[in-house]
C-alpha cells in the first residue's frame, strides 16, 4: 500500500543507478540516519550507547569488511580476528610512537597495515579455494596471536602484553563520553558502508562477484583473478583493520591479543552467514543478531521474574542462541537480509502477496 513503486519513473541513467531506486527506501534510510544521529544520542541511556550500540556498530563494520571478501568475492576467511588485531596494534603503535598523531590518521593507517597483511595472506587464494583457503587464512590468526604475544616491540614493551590508549581526541574534541564514542563510530560506519556499497556496484565489485560465481568463466571473459582476488583481500582487510582499531581504541580502551582471538573470527563469519552473504545490509542484521540476542537472552529470565543461577542463564543463552542459528539457517539459508527483502516484496504486493 505505502510501499509501492508505480508512478516512479526513471528518466536518466543517474536515476536508474542510485543506491535506493525506490523513493520509500530513500525516505526510510534518511529517517534511519536521522534517528541514528539525532534521536539516539539524545534519548538513549549510557549503558545502551556504550555497551550495546558502540560494539554493534564496530562489529557491523568488521562484518561489512568480511562480507566483501566472503560474500562478494567468495574467498572464505577465518583470519578476520587477525586483521582486526593488526589494525588495532598498528594504530596503537602509530599513536604512541609518533607525537601528535591525529586519531583518525592512526586509525586509517592501522587499516592500511591490515591491508598489507591481508594481501600477504591473500596470496594463497590464487592457488587454493574454499575450505582449503579457510584453513590457510587460519594461519594469519595463529601468526598474529603469536606475534602480538611474543614480540615486545608491538606492545611498546608493556610488561604484561596489554596495551591501552587514553586521551583520544579529534581536532581538539575529546572522544570520551558514550555519546561522542557512539557518534564517532557511527560516522565511520556510515562512510564505510556507503563506500562499500558503491564499490560492490562498480566494475571491481562485478569482477569480485564474477570470481565468486565461476572463476574459470570470469578468467575467460578477461577478468584477472590475481587482481580481483587481491583487491578483495585488500579492501576487506582495510575495513576490518579499521574496525579492529575502533574496537581497541573506542570500545575496550585497553586490550590484549585475546580480544581478537579465533573466537572473534568465528563470530564475524557467523554474522556474515546469518546476516546474508553478499549483502551490505546483511552485515548489519548479522551483527545485530549476534550482539543483541545473547544479551537479550541473558537478561530475559530476570525480566520474566525467574531467578535462575548465573551459570544456568549463561548455558541457556548459549543453547537457545545455537538453536536459533540453526533455525534461521534452515528457514532462510540466505540470511536475514533475504528475509528482509522477501518482506519488502510482500509489502509491495500487499494486500495480496503471493
Amino acid at each position, binding site marked *: 500500500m505505502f510501499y509501492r513503486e508505480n508512478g516512479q519513473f526513471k528518466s536518466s541513467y543517474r536515476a536508474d543507478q542510485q543506491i535506493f531506486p525506490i523513493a520509500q527506501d530513500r525516505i526510510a534510510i534518511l529517517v534511519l540516519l536521522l534517528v541514528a544521529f539525532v534521536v539516539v544520542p539524545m534519548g538513549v541511556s*549510557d549503558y545502551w550507547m556504550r*555497551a550495546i550500540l558502540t560494539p554493534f556498530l564496530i562489529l557491523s563494520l568488521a562484518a561489512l569488511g568480511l562480507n566483501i571478501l566472503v560474500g562478494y568475492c567468495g574467498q572464505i576467511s577465518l583470519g578476520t580476528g587477525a586483521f582486526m588485531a593488526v589494525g588495532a596494534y598498528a594504530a596503537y603503535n602509530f599513536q604512541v610512537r609518533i607525537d601528535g598523531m591525529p586519531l583518525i590518521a592512526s586509525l586509517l593507517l592501522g587499516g592500511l597495515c591490515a591491508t598489507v597483511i591481508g594481501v600477504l595472506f591473500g596470496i594463497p587464494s590464487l592457488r587454493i579455494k574454499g575450505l582449503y583457503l579457510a584453513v590457510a587464512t587460519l594461519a594469519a590468526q595463529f601468526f598474529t*596471536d603469536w606475534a602480538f604475544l611474543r614480540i615486545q616491540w608491538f606492545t611498546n614493551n608493556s610488561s604484561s602484553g596489554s596495551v*591501552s590508549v587514553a586521551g583520544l581526541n579529534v581536532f581538539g574534541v575529546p572522544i570520551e563520553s558514550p555519546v561522542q564514542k557512539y557518534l564517532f563510530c557511527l560516522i565511520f560506519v556510515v562512510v564505510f558502508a556507503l563506500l562499500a556499497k558503491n564499490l560492490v556496484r562498480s566494475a571491481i565489485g562485478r569482477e569480485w562477484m564474477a570470481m565468486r560465481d565461476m572463476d574459470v568463466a570470469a578468467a575467460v571473459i578477461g577478468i584477472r583473478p590475481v587482481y580481483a582476488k587481491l583487491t578483495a583481500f585488500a579492501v576487506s582487510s582495510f575495513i576490518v583493520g579499521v574496525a579492529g582499531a575502533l574496537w581497541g581504541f573506542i570500545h*575496550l580502551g*585497553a*586490550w*590484549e591479543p585475546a580480544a581478537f582471538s579465533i573466537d572473534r573470527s568465528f563470530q564475524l563469519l557467523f554474522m556474515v552467514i546469518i546476516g546474508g552473504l553478499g549483502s551490505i545490509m546483511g552485515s548489519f542484521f548479522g551483527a545485530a543478531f549476534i550482539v543483541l540476542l545473547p544479551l537479550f537472552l541473558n537478561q530475559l529470565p530476570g525480566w520474566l521474574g525467574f531467578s535462575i543461577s*548465573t551459570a544456568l542463564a*549463561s548455558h541457556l543463552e548459549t543453547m537457545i542462541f545455537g538453536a536459533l542459528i540453526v533455525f534461521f539457517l534452515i528457514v532462510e539459508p540466505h540470511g536475514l537480509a533475504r528475509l528482509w527483502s522477501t518482506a519488502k516484496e510482500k509489502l509491495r504486493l500487499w494486500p495480496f502477496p503471493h
Partner: protein
Amino acid sequence: MTLKSLALTAALVATTLGTALAPSLVQAQAKEQFFPLLVYRTGPYAPNGTPWANGKQDYIKYVNATGGMNGVKITYEECETGYATDKGVECYERLKGRPGVALFDPQATGITFALTDKVPTDKIPLITLGYGLSASQDGGVFKWNFPLMGSYWTAADILIQHIGKKEGGMDKLKGKKIALVYHDSPFGKEPIPLLQERAKQNGFELSLIPVTAPGVEQKSAWLQVRQSRPDFVLLWGWGVMNSTALKEAVATGYPREKMYGVWWAGAEPDVKDVGANAKGYNALALNTSGTQPKVIQDILKQVHDKGQGTGPKDEVGSVLYTRGVIIQMLTIEAVKRAQERFGKGKVMTGEQVRWGMENLALDQKKLDALGFSGVMRPVSTSCQDHMGSTWARVHTWDGAKWGGMSDWYEADSQIIKPMVKAAADKYAGEKKLTRREAADCQS
C-alpha cells in the same frame, strides 16, 4: 503458515522484544548498598571461578542475616563474564549505574586493565585482591585501584624468598635455573619484570616458558622443561592450566616438590584431578582453608544451615571459597570504614567507598572480632600504599589436602617499591596524569 512466514513473524517478535531490552530499572530504595558481582561460572576457568563467586555471595548473605552494614542492607547481582574482556566491560556498563553501587571486583586481570581507564571517570573503586596491575599499588597514580594483600610482583618475590630459604640462603640461588611456566596473557606475564630483577640480583638463570590460553595444550612447554631440567618451576596458571601442568609434570617426570605455584594455582580444583600424583606440589597461600575459622562456621550456621547457601556445602571453606569470603569482607569493611566518616547507617557513594578502601585499618583485634583469626594477616592501607599488606605463605599438597603451611613472608620492599614507582610513573606519563597532591589524600 509457511516456514518462511513463521520466520518473518519470529523476526518481528524478536525486534519488538529487543526494544524492550532497556536496562531493567531498579527503584532506588533507601538503605541498600549494591554490590555488582562479576563472575565466571562457565568456560575454562569455571572450576576456579565458581567457589570464589560462591564465597562472595555467602558472605553477603551472612552479613545481611546479621544486620547488614550498620543497618544498611546489601543487594547484589551477578553478571557472567566468562573471563572475556569485552563481556566484562559490558557487565561493568550494565551494573555501574545501579543506585548505591559500591565497587567492582572484576576477577580477571584482562578486565582490570580495561576498567582501570574507566573507573576514574565513573568514580567507582576497583578491588583486585591478589591479581591485576602490580603497579597499581601506588595510590599516588592509581587513585581508584586497590590490589589488596598482594600483587604478582609480591607473589613472585615471596616465592623466590621461599626457595632461597629452603636452599639455605639467598646466595645459594646463584647459578640455579628457574623456569616460569606461565599463562600467556597479562595475568601470566605480570611477574616477569620482578623475576628478571631478582635474577639479576640473586644470580639465578630465568627461563620463560609461555603456555597458550586457556592452557590445555602444554606438550611443548614441558618438552622444554624436560630438555633444560630447571632446578625449580614456577607455575603461573589459572583454571584448567594448573591441573594440566601437574599432569604434564607427572608425565615428564619432573619432581612436583620442585614446583611452586602462584596463589591462583594453589586451590583444590587445581590438584583434585591429579590427586596423589600431585603430592609435594607447593603453592602460595594468601589465606588458609578448612572449616575451622569462626567466620566459616558462622556462614555455615547462618546461611547454609538455613538452606540459603550458594553452591555445595562441602565446598565451603575451600581455598578459593575462603578467598571470596575475604574479598567480600574487605569490601564490606571498606564501606563500614567509610560510614565511620560519612555517617553510619547511610548508603555510601563510590567516592566515599574509595576513601574507606584507602583508610582500611584491620588490625589483629578487628580480624579476630570478625572471625578471621588465623585466616589472614592484618591489612592497613594508606593514600600511598593501596595494597595494605604483602604477607603470604607457602602450602603443600599432601595428596589429599592442602597443608604444611610455611612461615609468613613479606615481599622485599627494597625491590618492589622502586619498581612500583617506576611503573606507575611510566603509566602516568603515558596517560598524561599528574601525581595526586597531598591534599587529595584527605578527600
